[in-house]
C-alpha cells in the first residue's frame, strides 16, 4: 500500500463546468427502456412496410369503422385505404399512446426514486446542486427520451418510403401528428415525475404512472362505445391526442395538444414543489 501524504501546499481546485450532468445520467439510467422504445417504434414502422403489400389487399374498412374498434384504436377511420391509413392504425393509434406513453411514464416515474435507491441523490444534493435543478434535469432527461423515441419512429416511417411503392405520406401532417404524440409523451413524463416526486420506490412510482396511462386507455376505449359517458372521455389524455384523425383526416383542434402540454407541466411542477418540500429517505 502506498504511503503518500497530502502536501500542505495544495493549490485551490480549478472550477469545472457542471453542464447537464444529471440530465445525461438520467438518460443513461433510462437506457434500457429508451432502447426498447426506439426498437419497437422502428420495428413497427418497418414491419408495416414489409406487410403492407399483403394487408392492403384485405378490406378492413367495415371492420375499422365499428365503434368497438374505433375505441380500441382511438379514432374513426371513415375511408380506409392507402399506406397512411395503415400507418395511422399501426403506429399512431391509441396503442401508440399506451405503449410509448407507458414507457415514458415509467421513465419519468423512476427518474428520481432510482437515485434514492442507488444512493446517488444524497451525495448529489450534498454538492452545490439545488433540488430544483436536480428535478428539472431529471425531467428534461425523460423528455429527451421521448423526443428520441419519436424521432426514431419518424425515421422508421421515412425508411418505409423506400420500401413501399407510392407511400402516400403527407409529411407536413405526419410531423403535426408526431407533435400531437409528443404532447402526449410530455404529459406521460409529467405524470411520472409527479409520482416519482413523493414515492421512494422506483417500481412503485413507475408502476403507478403506467397504471394511470393504462386506466386512461381502458376508459377511452369503453367511453367510445356509448354517448352516455362521453364526459368521461373528455377528462382522459387520449381524447386530446387524436393522432389518427390528424394523420389520416388532416383534422386537429389546435388547442387539444396544448391541454396535454399544460397538464404535463402542471403535474411536473406539482412534483417539483413536492420534491422541494419533502424529506429524502435513507436507502
Amino acid at each position: 500500500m502506498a504511503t503518500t501524504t497530502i502536501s500542505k501546499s495544495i493549490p485551490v481546485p480549478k472550477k469545472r463546468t457542471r453542464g447537464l450532468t444529471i440530465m445525461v445520467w438520467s438518460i443513461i439510467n433510462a437506457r434500457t427502456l429508451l432502447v426498447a422504445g426506439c426498437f419497437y417504434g422502428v420495428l413497427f414502422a418497418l414491419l408495416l412496410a414489409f406487410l403492407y403489400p399483403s394487408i392492403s389487399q384485405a378490406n378492413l374498412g367495415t371492420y375499422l369503422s365499428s365503434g368497438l374498434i374505433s375505441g380500441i384504436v382511438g379514432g374513426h377511420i371513415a375511408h380506409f385505404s392507402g399506406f397512411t391509413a395503415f400507418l395511422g392504425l399501426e403506429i399512431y393509434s391509441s396503442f401508440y399512446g399506451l405503449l410509448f406513453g407507458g414507457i415514458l411514464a415509467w421513465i419519468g416515474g423512476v427518474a428520481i426514486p432510482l437515485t434514492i435507491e442507488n444512493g446517488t441523490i444524497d451525495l448529489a444534493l450534498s454538492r452545490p446542486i439545488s433540488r430544483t435543478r436536480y428535478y428539472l434535469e431529471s425531467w428534461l432527461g425523460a423528455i429527451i427520451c421521448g423526443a428520441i423515441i419519436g424521432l426514431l419512429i419518424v425515421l422508421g416511417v421515412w425508411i418505409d418510403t423506400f420500401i413501399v411503392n407510392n407511400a402516400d405520406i403527407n409529411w407536413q401532417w405526419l410531423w403535426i401528428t408526431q407533435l400531437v404524440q409528443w404532447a402526449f409523451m410530455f404529459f406521460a413524463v409529467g405524470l411520472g415525475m409527479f409520482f416519482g416526486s413523493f414515492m421512494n420506490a422506483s417500481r412503485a412510482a413507475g408502476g403507478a404512472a403506467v397504471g394511470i396511462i393504462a386506466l386512461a386507455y381502458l376508459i377511452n376505449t369503453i367511453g367510445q362505445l356509448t354517448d352516455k359517458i362521453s364526459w368521461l372521455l373528455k377528462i382522459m389524455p387520449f381524447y386530446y391526442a387524436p393522432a389518427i384523425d390528424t394523420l389520416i383526416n388532416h383534422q386537429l383542434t389546435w388547442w387539444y395538444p396544448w391541454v396535454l402540454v399544460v397538464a404535463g407541466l402542471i403535474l411536473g411542477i406539482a412534483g417539483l414543489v413536492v420534491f422541494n418540500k419533502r424529506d429524502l429517505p435513507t436507502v
Partner: protein
Amino acid sequence: MTTQEPVIVIDKLEKSYGKIQAVRGISMSVERGEIFGFLGPNGAGKTTTIRCMLDVIRPSAGKIRIKGLDAQRDKLELHQHIGYLPGDVRLPGTMTGKQVIDYFSRLQGLEPILLNDLVARFNVETKRPMKSYSKGMRQKIGIVLAFMCDPEVLILDEPSSGLDPLLQRVFNELLLEEQARGKTIFMSSHIMSDVEKVCQRVAVIRNGELVTVEEVEKLRERAGQRVTVEFGDMVTEEELTRIPGVIDVTKNNRAYHLNVSGSMDPLIKSFSRHEVVRMQAEEAPLEEVFLKFYEEPEKVTTTKQ
C-alpha cells in the same frame, strides 16, 4: 462569519417523523480545525442530525449554521465547501469508479485535486463497475468522493466502517493531516478506538438527546485507571473499597482488580502499609465510558459550547 464563531453551530435542533422524535433539541458547536466525534448507539439520531446538516431532511425546529451560513437557506453556497461521506455508500452498479468520481466532481463544480493522492493512498480500484465492489471498496470510493475536491468542512457518517485495520490507520492519518491543514471534521462513528485516536472532542447522543459534549482528554481522566494488585499479606475487599478514588473492586484468585478515578496517591499510600507482591496499572479504555453514556441516563455536561 466572525473569527470567533465556530465552524459548525447546531442550535436546539429537533427532528420528528410523525410522533417519533428522532432528535430532541440538541445543541453543539465545532471549532475550526477540530475533529469532532459524534457518538451514539444505533437509532440515536446521528445520521438524522447529519442529514439535517446537509438539508437532505428538514429540521422540525432549531438552526444549523456551518461556516456562518444557514444550512437550509444558504445551502448552495455552503455545499461548495463541504465534503460528505454517507453512512452507507451506495452507488449505481453500472457506473465504474472513474465515472462516479467524474460525475460527483462535475456536480461539485471543481477539479478533484486530491484524487491521485487519495487513489494511491487507499489503493482505490476505479476501472471496474460498482456492482463488483465489496463494501470496503465502496467505502474507499466514498472517502475519495468526500475528500477529492479539498473541502474545508468534512461531514463523515461512520467513515471507517468496512475498512480493514490497515486502511483504518491510513484513514486516521488522513484525518490528522487534513486537520493540520485547517480542515474541520465532523464524524459519527461506532469505532471508539478510532474516535479516541483522532478526535479532540466528542458528543454522545442517545434517544435523540445529547448526553454529553466532552473533551476526549477529560473523558480519559474520567475513565481513570485499572489497577491489578496481589498482596503478600491479608487485605480485605472492604478495606480497598474505602480508599478514596477507588470506584469498584473485584477479586480473581489472589489478585484484586480496582478501577481508580483521579489521583493514585491515596491508593499508593494505602498499599504501602501492606506487602505488595505484584502490581500493574493501565489506563481504562474509553470504550467503557462511552458505553456508560449509551446505557445510563445522565445530565448533559459541556466543556466548550
